[in-house]
């Protein structure tokens, strides 16, 4: 039997998530207890954490796309072989990246902290994915549901933003700090925008499948969400660099473009939830739960995001843990919840493996533990960040004194992180076992 290639991606994605959470948890303790777990010091742990959780997002979204296109969109994959090469290339490059971190070799750029040379195989793997995707979906006749557009956009913009993120290799970009930072964060913003395209497209797809009709992904609202998401991805990044002395219009443009995209996604999930019959909610109990949770996180993150994109608030929150709260809230609360819904949907679909009651209960406990811990995690970060922001601007205490003041919140934050790790471990181990069983079957 030819195994579903998408499932291999899902397997790797869950592994990357768990490993990434492990390194993240260690780094957060190293933050508050100097000398903790010195085998892997903080400056190696942090990039391990970031690269692995970013891989979770990309791999699980890609796995979903490889799985959904042939199975549900009536679009057989253009080339299975190419997908196999894709996963091997991704996997081997991943190992090389981990090795280079362990050896203390860095590229030293946010998000892409590995040596620049390894960007080449990463880029090639995305080109393979892109060719396979477009060769597959261009066969579709008639109107595309919005998620096909979103995935296409996500792939194209990833290739663009990834290239842009490496413009620093040219002295023209690198040597002028203002240009370097501006271009770097322009690319960083579009990077997050491009993975959001992949993830939100996945959310629409799963909703459509659960509901069983195509209206969700062909509605006017879905189209506007796409268009606003695209606008945001292209122009809404400058809140990262409000204090960098660039030309002022760059800042105002971003301030003008708000977080409307998230507002609309939230509305779509809400409409979908209210229009769904009880029977389907019960049948797709697990994916449903995770999607609804993502809706609540969208709402909370939206408030935070809008606040910190106001320059007068940003000046206090920039460079503080509030930024981390914003990033973690969206990466875990929104993206991970949606991707887990997709993973759970795929696994019950492909393995025909009904989770037994014990496993369902484990996932349920994991679900609650993750969400409650995430809420605490964010609250502690926001308090720590707000306090740091005020103290820095008041200008009376030294860095060490400020860190000492916020230390109790950071300790609590680290423990809340353990809660998230445990919660996600409980959530993902039953699906992981199902996947392994499936992959080992002859």
């Amino acid at each position, binding site marked *: 039997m030819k195994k579903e290639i998408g499932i291999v991606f899902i397997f790797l994605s869950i592994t990357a998530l768990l490993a990434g959470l492990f390194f993240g948890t260690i780094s957060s303790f190293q933050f508050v207890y100097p000398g903790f777990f010195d085998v892997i010091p903080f400056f190696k742990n942090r990039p391990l954490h970031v690269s692995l959780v970013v891989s979770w997002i990309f791999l699980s979204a890609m796995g979903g796309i490889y799985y959904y296109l042939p199975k549900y969109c009536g679009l057989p994959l253009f080339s299975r072989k190419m997908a196999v090469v894709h996963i091997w290339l991704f996997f081997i490059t991943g190992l090389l990246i981990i090795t280079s971190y362990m050896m203390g070799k860095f590229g030293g750029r946010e998000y892409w902290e590995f040596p620049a040379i390894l960007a080449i195989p990463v880029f090639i793997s995305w080109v393979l994915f892109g060719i396979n995707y477009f060769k597959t979906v261009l066969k579709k006749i008639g109107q595309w549901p919005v998620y096909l557009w979103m995935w296409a956009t996500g792939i194209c913009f990833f290739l663009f933003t990834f290239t842009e993120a490496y413009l620093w290799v040219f002295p023209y970009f690198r040597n002028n700090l203002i240009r370097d930072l501006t271009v770097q964060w322009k690319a960083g913003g579009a990077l997050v925008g491009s993975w959001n395209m992949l993830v939100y497209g996945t959310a629409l797809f799963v909703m459509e499948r659960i509901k069983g009709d195509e209206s969700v992904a062909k509605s006017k609202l879905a189209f506007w969400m796409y268009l606003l998401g695209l606008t945001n991805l292209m122009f809404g990044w400058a809140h990262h660099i409000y204090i960098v002395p660039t030309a002022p219009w760059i*800042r105002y443009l971003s301030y003008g473009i708000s977080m409307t995209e998230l507002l609309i996604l939230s509305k779509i999930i809400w409409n979908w939830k209210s229009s769904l019959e009880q029977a389907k909610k019960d049948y797709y109990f697990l994916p449903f739960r995770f999607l609804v949770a993502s809706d609540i996180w969208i709402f909370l993150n939206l408030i935070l995001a809008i606040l910190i994109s106001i320059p007068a608030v940003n000046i206090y929150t920039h460079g503080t843990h509030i930024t981390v709260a914003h990033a973690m809230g969206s990466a875990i609360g929104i993206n991970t919840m949606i991707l887990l819904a997709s993973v759970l949907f795929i696994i019950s679909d492909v393995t025909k493996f009904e989770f037994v009651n014990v496993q369902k209960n484990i996932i349920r406990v994991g679900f609650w533990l993750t969400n409650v811990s995430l809420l605490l995690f964010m609250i502690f970060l926001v308090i720590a960040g707000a306090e740091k922001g005020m103290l820095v601007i008041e200008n009376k205490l030294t860095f060490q004194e400020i860190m000492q003041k916020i230390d109790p919140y950071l300790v609590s934050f680290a423990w809340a992180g353990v809660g998230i790790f445990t919660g996600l471990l409980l959530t993902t181990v039953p699906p992981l076992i199902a996947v392994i069983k499936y992959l080992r079957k002859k």
Partner: protein
Amino acid sequence: MSILLKRFLFWGLISLFIINSIVIYTSGTENDPAKAYITEESKAGKLLFQEYNCISCHQIYGLGGYMGPDLTNVISERGKGELYAKSFIQSGTQRMPNFHLSENDVNALTSYLKYVDKTGFSPVKNFEIKFDGTIMQKANL
């Protein structure tokens, strides 16, 4: 909505994006107040700064990790300065690793920080909030 309008919106956005990118690569970021401080040494320092992943613990303009302080103005801050920065880079602390750098590397890193210092202020401590929620930066005291 008609297909035509959708196409118009889509390609309109893409065109604006291309124009926006080109302007940002060129004139939007042309003005570097500290151009005079870019030297061969500072350029090498920047690459070392990346090679040792200093940004995983430090920030420049508030961007980076939070274990250590923002380094944008370490050179000009009251009570700190070039020698102060050098001593940290040379020997590390309990939290900051000692990278066992050569004297040349330490000088290059310091020279990079000297350039960064002249480009602007971070964190901005002296500012005025305007009625529309935007900020007017003033020189830090």
